[in-house]
């Protein structure tokens, strides 16, 4: 099956035609016409986006999201690879579970689904999971994380960092000192003092980041900091990189755009872990993402059914869906504000995450012979987020009715046309 993408604009402004054949780009030129013609009208062609932080809820909470619905949402958001976090039920702490998730992703066929393995058994924070078995499984797990929970025990964290060196693995830490965040509901600051919600201090995040940076340096291993949210955290990562420590960092789209002021009406749609922070934190995160201190954007796509948000704040679940809005939210936060351009966006949302995770078929240079994992963006479009139009099984987006810039209009996964306009064409059956 051949597909010709007509009139695709590259980052350098050149408009070209591309032929996709047998999953790879077989030809780049002008006036090409082979197989199915997809005229993209000079919209921007980028490598498909790569997410290192996705919660898919399967196995266990298929009412919130399945691997299939989550990867469909990913395709709509321009993603060709996502990474399924381990906090499922059962936890992805054995080869069996990660292989199941990997297989479900392949069967769905909307994008690659790479499982992340748990660091500790059942996320208990006490005993290491079988990291080697997961690494050697067919899912070839390289990222390990207890995300949702922090690996708070310093010795265990040290051991995990050391252990994954065997297979060039990486520990993705959810930085949250548990004793400083007992019952925490939102960022601790002026807004929490007014709302009477238990505070979640920045230091609870920063203390773990600082500790883990020093541990990573000490044992010479790779550390990835999930969802950075504080100005202090950005400073710590900057310091670590200046010392040559092998640390990478991530920020979510929502932390680039929203602040704790959103909590003022107690609508749990804004309840998220880590919490929304202050304006100055948002400014620091944007600056950090612009100068490369923060390497990547990770969605922390966290689906929850309606009943987990349709209640009082304190009882509500933490988390927001994000796959389908990520690119637009980053464009609004970073490009509309002229903090960086499309080249940097592509780096932070595709090239860098693929490099960190070792997803060699993704985030590659667009050239003949490369695997055809691609997305087309209408950079002039604006669109309004409407909950009911989301492909994700859960609708907990904080951006309901918000106008966002730039729209993903096509995705191609392994040379197959997955998203056409706002329509998902087909998955594995294609």
């Amino acid at each position: 099956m051949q597909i010709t993408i007509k009139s695709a604009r590259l980052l350098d402004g050149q408009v070209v035609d591309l032929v996709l054949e047998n999953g790879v780009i077989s030809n780049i030129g002008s006036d090409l016409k082979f197989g199915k013609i997809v005229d993209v009208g000079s919209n921007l062609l980028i490598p498909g986006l790569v997410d290192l932080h996705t919660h898919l809820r399967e196995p266990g909470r298929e009412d919130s999201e399945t691997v299939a619905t989550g990867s469909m949402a990913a395709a709509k958001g321009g993603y060709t690879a996502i990474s399924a976090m381990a906090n499922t039920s059962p936890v992805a702490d054995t080869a069996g579970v990660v292989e199941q998730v990997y297989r479900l992703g392949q069967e769905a066929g909307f994008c690659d689904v790479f499982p992340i393995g748990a660091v500790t058994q059942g996320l208990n924070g006490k005993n290491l999971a079988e990291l080697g078995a997961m690494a050697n499984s067919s899912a070839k797990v390289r990222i390990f994380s207890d995300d949702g929970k922090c690996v708070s025990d310093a010795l265990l964290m040290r051991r995990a960092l050391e252990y994954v060196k065997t297979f060039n693995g990486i520990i993705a830490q959810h930085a949250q000192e548990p004793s400083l965040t007992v019952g925490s509901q939102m960022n601790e600051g002026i807004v929490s003092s007014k709302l009477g919600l238990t505070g979640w201090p920045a230091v609870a995040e920063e203390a773990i980041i600082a500790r883990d940076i020093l541990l990573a340096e000490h044992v010479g291993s790779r550390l990835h900091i999930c969802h950075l949210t504080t100005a202090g955290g950005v400073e710590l990562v900057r310091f670590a990189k200046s010392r040559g420590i092998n640390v990478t960092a991530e920020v979510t789209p929502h932390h680039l755009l929203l602040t704790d002021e959103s909590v003022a009406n107690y609508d749990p749609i804004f309840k998220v872990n880590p919490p929304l922070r202050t304006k100055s934190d948002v400014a620091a995160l944007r600056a950090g993402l612009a100068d490369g201190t923060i390497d990547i954007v990770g969605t922390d796509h966290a689906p929850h059914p309606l009943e987990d948000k349709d209640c009082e704040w304190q009882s509500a679940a933490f988390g927001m869906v994000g796959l389908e809005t990520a690119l637009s939210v980053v464009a609004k936060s970073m490009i509309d504000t002229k903090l960086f351009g499309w080249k940097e966006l592509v780096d932070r949302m595709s090239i860098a995450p693929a490099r960190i995770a070792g997803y060699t078929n993704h985030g590659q240079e667009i050239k003949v012979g490369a695997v055809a994992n691609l997305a087309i963006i209408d950079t002039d479009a604006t669109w309004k987020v409407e909950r009911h139009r989301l492909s994700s099984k859960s609708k907990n987006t904080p951006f309901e009715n918000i106008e966002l810039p730039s729209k993903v209009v096509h995705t191609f996964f392994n040379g197959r046309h997955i998203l056409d306009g706002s329509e998902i064409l087909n998955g594995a059956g294609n």
Partner: protein
Amino acid sequence: MKKHLLSIDDLNAQEVIEILDTAFQLANISDGATKKLPTLRGRTVVNLFFEDSTRTRISFESAAKRLSADVINFNAKGSSVSKGESLKDTAQTLQAMGADAVVIRHNASGAAQRLADSGWISASVINAGDGTHEHPTQALLDAYTIREKFPEFKSDFSGLHVAIVGDILHSRVARSNVLLLTKLGAKVTLVSPPTLMPVGISAWPVEISYDLDEVIGAVDVLMVLRLQSERMAASYFPTEREYSRGYGLDKLRLDSLKKSAIVMHPGPMIRGLEISAESADSHRSVVLNQVANGVLVRMAVLYQLLGGAALGGTSAQIDKSGDSREVSA
């Protein structure tokens, strides 16, 4: 006035004064406890309490009954339904029962606002204490009591100095009082150990002190907050004795108050911990006035929320059925 009373922030200074004035007129009309007014006849007020608070519930119940409203007490505490669902389900039940107002006490901050905003019910919502957020009718009754004791302050509290001492961090009474008192122009000083003050307090329009003895001689009103002993377990302070020595209102401190100063407490008091027995029973203590005024202020709030046409209702019919005194209305 708005449809709901969720936070003192919902009211401007003038609206606060209107409630206090209404309560004052109600005091004149219904000075005998037996007097019943027909004002809310046919209206249903539900007391929805997810937390035990017999005093607050009785106060609201008494206020509603004096205005002839039908009162339903719904004690939701200990309900076996999972927490999140129970607020919504209970609310929808009340809606089906035709509640005109829901007085809600809940252990979650923001629960009253959720109830008002969620679309689960159409009734007016009155916040009777939500978690560690607010307790607006308590602040209103405190202001009423202050006005009663300091008749020179009518609608402007400039020149009045109020100190609130105790667990500011977890106190909904403190939050509502800070908003209300500063709105009326009073100077407010918050006194507690640093562990019991919220981190963002620097943005509040108040002065803060860690030393009660430094503040006590200058204030007109000393509001003592209840100290919950479970705070000690969480290391907010070392021992009850140490807290009591530093922040309890004992005889010595009572004597260092200005001659005209009054002592307030939202109740229930723990004598011997935050307040000594002789302080609680001294002539300066207005605790019982606070209780009595609570009913009046809650009557005023119910009247303001339910005593008129439903919001959004037509006002065109107004002049026709009244007499021509609309000029003075």
